[in-house]
């Protein structure tokens, strides 16, 4: 997403200031502001992080400490779609490891990487609370359960065709 190099759009800056004003102290809006930026650009670039830090009255390093702390805040670009495959205990028992191998082999990438066409990033994730339908995964914001190789292959085809 090349626009990650450009400054934050004025309406987004305004939205962040509103969030900050709702908090007792502006830094209380740190995670919400970073999530807003990520929702717009897919990830949080260093330029954007510095702008947000400035808006919240924090140092960039301070805010980066927060940004890098959380699993769901991305400080590197990701693909158009993110597949988060659960690797916690219930999904492990139900076979998430061979599924992850299959997914990565099919896409030709390792966990944590993005396909060359920038369509899909694969990230292992901790328990997503769908253990009665393990193995489970989150595809962008949608929860999938009882995942098998057939459903993964179908999903990959669909995601590649979806902007």
């Amino acid at each position, binding site marked *: 997403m090349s626009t990650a190099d450009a400054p934050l759009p004025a309406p987004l800056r305004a939205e962040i200031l509103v969030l900050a004003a*709702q908090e007792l102290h502006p830094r209380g809006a740190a*995670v919400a502001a970073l999530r807003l930026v990520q929702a717009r650009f897919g990830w949080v670039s260093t330029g954007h992080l510095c702008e947000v830090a400035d808006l919240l009255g924090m140092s960039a390093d301070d805010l980066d400490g927060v940004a890098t702390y959380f699993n769901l805040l991305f400080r590197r670009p990701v693909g158009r779609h993110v597949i988060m495959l659960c*690797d916690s205990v*219930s999904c492990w028992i139900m*076979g998430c490891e061979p599924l992850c191998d299959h997914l990565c082999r099919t896409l030709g990438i390792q966990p944590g990487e993005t396909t060359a066409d920038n369509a899909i990033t694969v990230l292992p994730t901790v328990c*997503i*609370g769908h*253990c009665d339908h393990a193995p489970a995964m989150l595809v962008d914001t949608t929860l999938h359960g009882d995942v098998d190789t057939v459903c993964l292959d179908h999903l990959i085809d669909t995601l590649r065709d979806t902007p």
Partner: protein
Amino acid sequence: MTLLSDRPLTAMIDPAAGPPDCAAYGRAGGWQAARRALGGLAPADIIDMVTRSKLRGRGGAGFSTGQKWSFVPKDPASERRKYLIANADEMEPGTFKDRLLLEGNPLQLVEGMILAAYGVQAGHGIVFLRGEYHLACTRLHHAIGEARQQGWLGENILGSGFSFDIHVHSSAGRYICGEETALLTALEGRRATPRSKPPFPQTGGLWGAPSVVNNVETLCNLPHIIANGPEWFAGLGLGEDGGTKIYGASGRVTKPGAWELPIGTPLRQIIEEHAGGMLPGYRLRALLPGGASTAFLDATSLDVAMDYGSVEKAGSRLGTGMAIILDDRTCPIGMIRNLEHFFAQESCGWCTPCRDGLPWVERLLTAIEDGTGQAEDMDHLARHARMLGAPGRTFCAHAPGAMAPLASGLKLFAADFTDHIRHGRCPLPAAHGGMNTRQGAPS
């Protein structure tokens, strides 16, 4: 509520129909408790009723809810900033009970929060929601908006003089945020490291103000306690604890899921009756009764009553009440390695024993599972279990939680550890190599 249900928490939950809206919630008996509380009960009455109901925290620690509230300074909400926070950061592996409540009936949580806030006189409500719960987030925002529109949230609710509103904080994924002081630190826009206590959150919590952090399931019980009375609620439990509990089971059982049952229901009934027993071709080897941070129980413990005291007597903890089942074709060392990988990754890194000890434990287990473990590795594992385990020499309960399955596993699966090391390989090479075999026995 109107009809006294013995499954009050889930009575209104119908996954096919979606969550009830404000009117449907009211028709099914909702808002009775809030009307009753704001229409004439004193805040102290609420605390007293909840104490008498024998409700204990459903997040895992099991502290008496009424007692937890009793430490909050009694100033009226209008005179002192106080917070009531719903802990919806459900990240304990194997646990999905709060998601069901959040998605199935978010207004029940809203009403529970109104009651708790009125009891402790907190004017500010926050739902600390884990970032991965997208559907819950949408439904919660909708429910709060609707409740606000109908006058259940905001200034001077029902003309009572009590004002309270709820803000949803969508977190961004870290297990330790479920620890209440780490949660407060996260809300303050900092790396979510736990805080030392005292001060306890009830006196010095969010931004230094008195704060109560209660689990979602805990809060969802409140409308039923206030509407139907503490004695009725206490009577729902089979043993010493009051109410119902959402229990669950995952792993190779026939019908994995979650069920609201009287607290104190025997483990055997949950697994054999509700979860339908093991899948054909599998036998139950052991289980974690309440999430990843609870100690293993073996098949001889199935008759334990799933309440706080009984599970502790059996050598584990009730935890979240969501059991993870280990079958006889899955390697216990592989399972413990997976658990320790989770704990190592989710350590906040604040204190050295946890930050460095957990990855060490994970590496030792990986070596043993891969067949390169040495006999003395067992001493290192035992030493870690002792040094990081409860009561612990670490800053918070994360490492002791991580050591619960390890310490119990070292005892319960001693022969498996020895076999791995002696033969230089996992004797169950295909145990976790199979594809999803929910539909039947592996070939």
